[in-house]
């Protein structure tokens, strides 16, 4: 009897496992066969950026890409980009993973897909850019302590070459043209490079089509051989 009473009134209330106590119901979720990944703000890689930066972290994106590739219920992936750039190696890692996925991928550049956002945009199987979206192509800058020796410039050139090679291999632009856009003077106020808007990206061969959400999703469905959901 005494033992029963103790069981009825536990000293510590058990932790709740559902939303019931907040007066909300759990909605039945319909699983989508197409998954979406948003890459927004700064792409954060080897360094944690100060909190005023909105970031997308590679430790979130990379395992998610692996999970999407392995999950048989997921047929395709839509990548939505609105990024100002970020870590070179994190960006290239995400771009390489996207490019080597076996499942169909479509990217959509909305707002901006600048700097290291460019290789991610071109990495998808098919890429779209919104009519008002922009992409800035500019050289990589050096930050922090710079030692003015030839090795510094060689290293910078090597880093830049990785980006250029990836973009050229995964889009319709030539190395010469991409470099020309990257080193153009007189267009950006405080830098060298080029800003390309919407259909210019398509004309340059960087992006496949101008379009929005409906076009991107219908292309992805077509690539996955599925009808309208």
């Amino acid at each position: 009897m005494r033992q029963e009473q103790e069981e009825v009134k536990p000293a510590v209330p058990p932790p709740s496992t559902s939303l019931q106590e907040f007066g909300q119901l759990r909605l039945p979720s319909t699983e989508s066969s197409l998954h979406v990944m948003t890459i927004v703000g700064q792409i954060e890689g080897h360094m944690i950026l100060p909190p005023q930066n909105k970031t997308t972290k590679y430790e979130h994106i990379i395992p998610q890409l692996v999970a999407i590739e392995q999950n048989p219920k997921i047929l395709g992936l839509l990548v939505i980009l609105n990024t100002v750039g970020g870590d070179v190696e994190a960006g290239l890692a995400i771009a390489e993973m996207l490019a080597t996925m076996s499942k169909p991928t479509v990217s959509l550049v909305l707002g901006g897909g600048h700097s290291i956002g460019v290789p991610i945009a071109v990495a998808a199987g098919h890429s779209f850019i919104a009519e008002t979206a922009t992409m800035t192509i500019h050289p990589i800058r050096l930050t922090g302590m710079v030692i003015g020796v030839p090795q510094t410039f060689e290293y910078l050139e090597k880093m830049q070459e990785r980006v250029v090679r990836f973009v050229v291999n995964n889009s319709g632009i030539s190395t010469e043209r991409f470099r020309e856009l990257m080193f153009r003077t007189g267009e950006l106020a405080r830098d060298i490079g080029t800003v390309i808007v919407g259909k210019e990206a398509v004309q340059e061969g960087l992006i496949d089509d101008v379009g929005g959400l409906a076009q991107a999703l219908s292309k992805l469905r077509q690539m996955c051989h599925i009808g309208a959901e």
Partner: protein
Amino acid sequence: MIYSIVPPEVIFAENIALKYPEEVVYLGKRVLVQPMDDRTCQIIQLLSSSPSDFLLPAFSPGNIITLHT
């Protein structure tokens, strides 16, 4: 190495007023939250690639949630 259109002095500006958001598991899904006090925090972002998850009102950004320890 950063390759961004945002100038490094803006990216690396020191701002002590802002706190880093924290990552927690809430109702089985990973969310990015801004802690408010010991037990409550505000949802900033749902970390999921499943579009249907974003229709669940419990995970709306701005929601204040109570964490059970």
